[in-house]
């Protein structure tokens, strides 16, 4: 398994780790922009649908063409208001839950992945080779099929139907571990660590003082991925949670979507759509914020050397 790591650690390890800044002289290409634009449209089209349809009433949804606005009332703001107040404002409760799961789950996942990735990249220890083999091997077993065993175990631990049942499994991101591993191998020069050791700095002190800042761009990437994964986590809460008060947004939206499909159920597709839109927005904002940090992180890396 270590062969892969070697490959990923790539040829430039011996190079001076200077990074290329943006070259201002590069000519912009319209053709390339247009070609990439096709992928952009492909990515955006369904989201445009979401945006357009969030302006329609429940009835308007069924009587108008999906990719254009409805002749009827412009219901965008009333939809938002309804989404936030429906069922005594349960949506906000779900939003709060989701934030809780993301902050603790994704934050913790990133922290664990950074620690472990750094440990794997910069230390030689007993059982190291087995770690990656075990991680990738375990990831290969279909998670949905493990749901029942996991549920039964958590039930025995008394964790089901509590936030912990959602948070604890989110703490593991094998992919994040891998990213941090390769990133730490490249971004943290071994000499710095040796120098710190010579100065008598403890390993954890070195980690927090010197290594963490160097890892910043990688941390942001892992944080972003695990945030999205936790934010959109659906299957696990579905199995673990019974009390709608602990639902994350995805489960709540699905419950709204499903509630039409029963005797006497009220179809609220307009709220499902508006709710979906509202669900995406915080992620988008987080991404934009993190991206800025991410770029400056990269740039900082290049300045430093």
């Amino acid at each position, binding site marked *: 398994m270590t*062969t*892969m790591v*070697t*490959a990923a650690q790539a*040829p430039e390890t011996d*190079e*001076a780790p200077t*990074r*290329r*800044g943006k*070259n201002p002289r590069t000519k*912009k*290409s319209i053709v*390339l*922009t247009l070609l*990439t634009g096709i*992928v952009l449209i492909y990515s955006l089209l369904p*989201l445009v649908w979401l945006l357009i349809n969030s302006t329609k009433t429940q009835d308007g949804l069924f009587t108008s*063409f999906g*990719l254009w606005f409805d002749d009827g009332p412009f219901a965008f703001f009333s939809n938002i208001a309804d989404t936030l107040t429906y069922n005594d404002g349960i949506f906000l409760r779900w939003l709060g839950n989701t934030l809780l799961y993301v902050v603790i789950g994704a934050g913790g996942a990133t922290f*664990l992945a950074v*620690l*472990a990735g750094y*440990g*794997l*990249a*910069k230390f*030689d*220890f*007993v059982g*190291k080779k087995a*770690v990656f083999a075990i*991680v990738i091997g*375990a*990831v*290969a*077993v*279909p998670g*949905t*099929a493990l749901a*029942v*065993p996991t549920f039964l175990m958590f039930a025995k631990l008394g964790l089901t139907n509590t936030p912990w049942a959602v948070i604890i*499994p989110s703490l*593991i991101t094998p*992919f994040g571990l891998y*990213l941090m591993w*390769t990133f730490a*191998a490249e*971004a943290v020069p071994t000499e710095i660590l040796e120098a710190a050791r010579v100065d008598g700095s403890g390993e954890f002190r070195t*980690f927090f003082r010197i290594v963490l800042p160097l890892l910043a761009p990688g941390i942001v*990437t892992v944080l972003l991925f695990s945030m999205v994964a936790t934010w959109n986590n*659906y299957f696990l809460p579905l199995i673990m949670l019974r009390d709608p008060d602990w639902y994350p947004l*995805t489960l709540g*939206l699905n419950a709204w979507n499903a509630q039409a499909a029963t005797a006497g159920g009220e179809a609220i597709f307009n709220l499902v*759509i508006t709710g*979906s839109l509202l669900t*995406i927005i915080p*992620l988008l904002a987080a991404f*934009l914020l993190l*991206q800025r940090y991410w770029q400056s992180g990269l740039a900082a890396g290049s300045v430093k050397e």
Partner: protein
Amino acid sequence: MAELAVRRRRSWTGWRFVGPFMVVFALVFLAPIAYSIYLSLFKTRLIGGTSFVGLDNYQQALTDPSFWSSLGRVSLFLVVQVPIMLFIALLVALAIDSGRLHGSSFFRVTIFLPYAVPAVVAALMWGFMYGSQFGLLASINDQFGWSLPDLLSPSWILASIGNINTWEFTGYNMLIFYSALRTIPGSLYESAEIDGAGEFRKITAIKLPAIRGALVVATIFSIIGSFQLFNEPSILQQLAPNAITTDFTPNLYAYNLSFSGQQYNYSATVAIVMGIITMVIAYVVQLRGTKER
């Protein structure tokens, strides 16, 4: 094979960093897997209770046509969808990295965006797009007098799911490639330019070799993702119940075995067998991916 980590005296120091991860990992991955293996050796019936059956469940899985046809289906999916998705992701990453795009950060955000859409919502949106009666497909057919095939019919459904997956994960993979590209030292390009290398030459000689590790890993995780295909078919099933059978993918099959049929033991067996197959294939890909340098 050079070990790039510091050649310090082998010690347990590293475990202080890896330990916390592995503890939680053991709880949420290893323990359920061990429990599944245990479960797979038993059989519980509605009438008659639980009995030890040894490897009977494995024998059943190996001769189960439902299991093998579902495996065949995801394999087909794998060899078609994954290359297309990774190819597009790579092209976009290269385009953005080249610095020749107008508004490249806008591209980066927007193409990543679908990954942020919850599966429930994605199914709603694509369900509308695929709708042959009142959906976008119907509108296009009406508008242009075409008769595009019903994308939710049995013969098209795999392609339709492939499209959703491509839509969801192209941006994700693009970002991985892109961040790998960003770690290439500028000095390499400078020397290439001095040698008079063009953009294409720079891609084949510098960029692709440099991100080979990221490519291999993205491929491995895509293989695992394809073999574990579940969310998209399970949600589209509500719209196309006849096209997406309960044994459509191995994962869906294992899920339905345990949740609709309470065949927990057999379901665990299918999961274990599937895990072993996935591991073997991922291992082979990893070997091949790293050997040809």
